Every structure is written in structure tokens, then in C-alpha cells.
């Protein structure tokens, strides 16, 4: 908020022109399409993780960036997505990814509807603490009901079949994940990006931004605040739930860790890293964070220290995140040149 004019002009410009979006989106899409053929499998799998987290962060940012609500409970919806899939495997012997996604959507709609009903009446720190507390309820349940959830051992999820059995991971799992599954995730990622882009640029999205900017005035142009917040909460949670469902086959295992509030913190982190005042921020942030964390974990046991220092430095010096800063630099360069 230190430089509102700069930060927000990004949104105004972004929302303004489709052409601007395509100039950026098309090359990025092309790169994403060819990546599995040019980079090592391991890198492609990391990118898959990144894309999945990007979907989750995109959902999260509908609340933070566009509605002005900081949730510390998004691990809950991610976890619901993942556990719904794991439980479908365990109890229903389902193996179809499409059914998984359907189940995750249904599950996260139910959970976010209940949580949202409670939470949207609060704002600021109270919203944050309430979402955190509610998400911890789910965490403690996943933790304690080990005969259902496997407790800290978690639940295993085998490689699913994609597109109603068209592609199955019977062969090399790494190969399957870095190609077939990568493209599967990529298509859903594209769909989610387009959908979210439409949502934030819809009249509904404008209403959310109005609520974020000025709640009282929003009410006085006829926006019924709670309802809009509730719908935003629902959409946000479902996106993150979907990410959880996509994540679990890739990871092969789900544990209560992903329900813990510190994982919510990571979702917040990646969004801020990318820049929560811009649409692309959470996407960039999620992908970068995923690499950052992987390398930090591999590089030192003190990876938390490293990431914590990055976060503090980021908040102190680059509050608009990677995308916000890049846009500012680009604008300055353009002006200068």
C-alpha cells in the first residue's frame, strides 16, 4: 500500500486490455507446452508441482488481492481436496482422475460453504485468526482419526488413470508424471487461469474490488457485502481444493502436514512473493516458491531460516512482489527509453 498508484495502475491496465494479456500469456503458454521435451524430467515434475500450487494460490488471491481478506486457513481446502481423493481410493477404490476432481470439488464446496458462512462476517485479523482456527480443526481431525486418515503416516494414492482410462500410469511413473500428468495439469491450469481471469474481470470481480477498497461505499452503491464475500470465499476455496486433488497423485501420499496452518502460511508466502496486487502474481510466486523451497531444502537443513529471511526482506523492500516490481521497472524503463 506504500505506492498505491503504482501498484494499482497495474490492475487497471491489466484489466483494461485483452491485447496486453495475450502479449504475455501466449509466449508463456507456448513455453509451458514444450517444457517437458526440453528439460530434465525432474525439473518438469517440479514445474507440475508449481502449476498445481499456482492454481491454489490463484484461488487464495481472489480473497487477499481482490476482496481484501487475508486467510490463514487455505491449507484446509487444499487438504480437503487431497484427502477426498485419498479416501476415494481407500474406500471406493476409485482410480479415475476425473472422478477425483469431481469429488474434490464437491468436498471443498461443502467445507468452504460451512467455513465461509462463519468467516465472512469478519475482516482483518479476526478473519485471519478464525480461518486459521477452523483449518486447525480439520488438521487435528486428520491427525487424530488415524484409522480413517492414517494419522501421521498419511494415506497413499496410486497413479490415477486420466481421461477415463485413456492414459494410465502403468509404465514408468516418473515418465508418466513428467509428461501425461504434466499436460493434464497444464490444461486444468489454463482452464483455471482463464476462469479466474474472467471472474476477476467480471462485474462480480469489480464488486469484490469495490468491497476491498471501501466497504461502506460498496454498500451504498447497492453491493450486499456478505453475499459477495461468501461467493468469493467459495470460489477461492474450490480452486485451492482442486489444487489439493491434483497434488496428491503427484506426491503419492497425503499427510496431515498439508492441513497444518503453516502450510497456509506457505500459500500466503508464495502469493506475496509473486505480488498479490496483480493477477499473475500468485502464479509466478507459486512456481518460483516451489523451486526456491526445493532448492533451499536441498541446499541446507536451515531452509526455513533462508525462506524466512527472504520473506522479511521481500516485505520490507519489495511489497509489490516479483510481478509488481517487474511492472514498475518495465514502466520506468519504457518511460526512460
Amino acid at each position, binding site marked *: 500500500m506504500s505506492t498505491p498508484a503504482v501498484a494499482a495502475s497495474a490492475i487497471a491496465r491489466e484489466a483494461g486490455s485483452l491485447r496486453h494479456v495475450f502479449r504475455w500469456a501466449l509466449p508463456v503458454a507456448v513455453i509451458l507446452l514444450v517444457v517437458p521435451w526440453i528439460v530434465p524430467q525432474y525439473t518438469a515434475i517440479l514445474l507440475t508441482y508449481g502449476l498445481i500450487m499456482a492454481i491454489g494460490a490463484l484461488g487464495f488471491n481472489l480473497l487477499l488481492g481482490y476482496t481484501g481478506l487475508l486467510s490463514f486457513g487455505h491449507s484446509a481446502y487444499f487438504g480437503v481436496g487431497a484427502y477426498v481423493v485419498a479416501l476415494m481410493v481407500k474406500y471406493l477404490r476409485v482410480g479415475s482422475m476425473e472422478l477425483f476432481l469431481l469429488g474434490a470439488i464437491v468436498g471443498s464446496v461443502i467445507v468452504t460453504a460451512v467455513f465461509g458462512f462463519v468467516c465472512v462476517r*469478519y475482516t482483518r485479523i479476526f478473519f485471519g485468526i478464525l480461518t486459521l482456527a477452523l483449518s486447525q480443526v480439520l488438521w487435528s481431525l486428520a491427525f487424530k482419526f488415524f484409522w480413517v486418515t492414517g494419522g501421521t503416516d498419511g494415506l497413499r494414492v496410486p497413479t490415477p488413470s486420466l481421461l477415463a482410462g485413456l492414459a494410465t500410469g502403468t509404465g514408468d511413473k516418473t515418465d508418466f508424471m513428467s509428461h501425461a500428468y504434466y499436460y493434464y495439469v497444464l490444461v486444468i491450469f489454463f482452464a483455471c487461469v482463464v476462469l479466474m481471469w474472467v471472474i476477476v474481470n467480471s462485474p462480480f470481480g469489480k464488486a469484490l474490488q469495490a468491497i476491498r477498497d471501501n466497504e461502506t461505499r460498496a454498500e451504498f452503491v447497492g453491493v450486499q457485502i456478505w453475499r459477495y464475500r461468501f461467493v468469493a470465499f467459495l470460489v477461492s476455496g474450490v480452486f485451492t481444493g482442486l489444487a489439493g486433488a491434483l497434488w496428491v497423485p503427484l506426491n503419492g501420499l497425503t499427510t496431515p502436514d498439508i492441513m497444518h496452518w503453516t502450510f497456509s502460511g506457505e500459500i*500466503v508466502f508464495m502469493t506475496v512473493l509473486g505480488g498479490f496486487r496483480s493477477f499473475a502474481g500468485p502464479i509466478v510466486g507459486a512456481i518460483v516458491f516451489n523451486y526456491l523451497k526445493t532448492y533451499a531444502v536441498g541446499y541446507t537443513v536451515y531452509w526455513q531460516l533462508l525462506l524466512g529471511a527472504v520473506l522479511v526482506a521481500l*516485505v520490507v523492500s519489495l511489497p509489490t512482489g516479483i510481478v509488481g516490481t517487474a511492472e514498475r521497472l518495465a514502466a520506468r524503463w519504457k518511460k526512460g527509453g
Partner: protein
Amino acid sequence: MEVLLIHLVNALLYASVLFLIAGGLSLIYGVMRIVNLAHGNLYAFGAYVTAWAIGGVAAGAPSSLLLVLLPAGAFAAAVLGAALEPTLLRPFYKRAEEYQLLVTFGLLMILEDLLRFIWGPYPLSASELFENFGSLTIGDSLYPTYNFLVIGVGIVAAVFLWAFIYKTRFGVVLRATSQNMRMASALGVNVNRVYVQAFTLGCFMAGLGGAIVVPGQSAVLGMGVDALVLAFIVVVIGGLGSLEGALVGALIVGVVREAGIAWFPEIELAVLYLAAAIVLLVRPAGLFGRP
């Protein structure tokens, strides 16, 4: 009957520690309107320092010396707090709440690993003091005497804090600053100094909680993060920013948790979180909070 008594003492034991942590968190919020996500790690820091002093440096020393070393963790946490507030937090008071939470979340991560860096990944124990105290019998059962010390410290801390806040000059200035910072500064109160003092006091309380808890249970990584969430439940129930609220909230959480452990161990934590959510629904600002 004595089972019930033991449960009650356990509840008080738990409430004492929780009050120290949550009271500090609430005090800091009450004065400077900042929620310090790293607060639990200051509690853990206090535990580690005391465990290191009692279990490491002075191991084998007589109980009286160990007892003198017990508050080391509290003072260490206070010093850390006094260093952190002006450097890391002060620039954020005028920024949006998101940034305050983020910076303290970053601090949480840093402190978590600093503990690992300094004291390694294994639990640090100070059980010598705990054992030296021996145990007494309640009915037919043996109960560790040390636990009564913890309860005693909790009670003394509550009384002391009450007197400090309501009976001293500093307390009056502190309350004035928390109620209307602008007005306090216009009356000659150096608000920055009050902030450092309040933050230091809050960290001292958290550190004290860690210090007295560590002889009975070891200092482990992750204890700070767990404690923070429990402290949140306490302040949500009691009302963010209210010390009375922290006290009542800690007692409620202590009793509910002990009852949970006794009768429905699977959902003990879930019940706590649900209790907090219900209180928020009925009284959004908590039992003692002001909206």
C-alpha cells in the same frame, strides 16, 4: 475423587503456562495492535535457553542453583524481544495488517531454524530439576511436586501483572497508550519507548512460560508453532488485547483440554478449536474484548 483432583491440577498447570503465552500475545496486541505470529517461538526460545542452562551448563548443580537459573529463558526472550521490536516491527505499524502478519510469519520461520541451528534437532531436557522436586501423594497416586511450582508461578505472574498494569505508573501510561496512542503522545508519552517496553514484557511472559514448562517436558522443535495456535484459541475466547480475557481464556482452555484428554482424546483439539469458533460467533470480540 482424587482422579478429579488430579485432572483439576493438570488443568491449572496447563492454564498457567497458556496464560503466560497468551497474556503476552494479548498484551502486545492490546498496546500496539500487532499480532505477532512469532510469539510462540519466543516461548520456545525461553524453553531452550532454560533447558540449556539447567540441563546443560549447570547440570548436576544443587536444586537451589537450578531454581535460580530457571528464569534465564524469560530474560533471554525479553532481550530478544527488546532487540526485535525497534528493528523489525516498528517500520510496519503504519503499513497494512497483511504486511505485519507476513513479517512476523517470516520471523517465525527464522526463529524456528535458529533454535535448530543453536541447539540442534534433538529435544533438550531439563528434567533434573523436575526430578529433584520429587512427588507427593494425592489419594493413592503420586503427583510431581514441580507442577505445583508451575501453577504457583502462573498465579504469581497473574497477580504481579495485574498489580503492574493497574497499580504502577508504567501501567497507567501503558493503558493510556493502548487506548489512545495519539492522545498519549500529545500528553508527552514517548510512545516508541512504551512500545519497546510492552513488547519486551510480552516476550518476557512468553519466555517465562517456556522456562517453567521445560523441566517437566523437554524443549522440542515445533513447540512454538503449536503453542501459538493454542494461544490464539485463548485470546479468541478471552478477547484479543484483554489480560482478564487471557486469564479466563487460559482457564477455559485448560479445563476443556483436560476434560478432552480424559473423555474424548481423539477430538480433544478439534473441540478446542470449535469452542473458539463458537465464542467468536456469539461474541465476535471474545468474552472480554471490545469490538
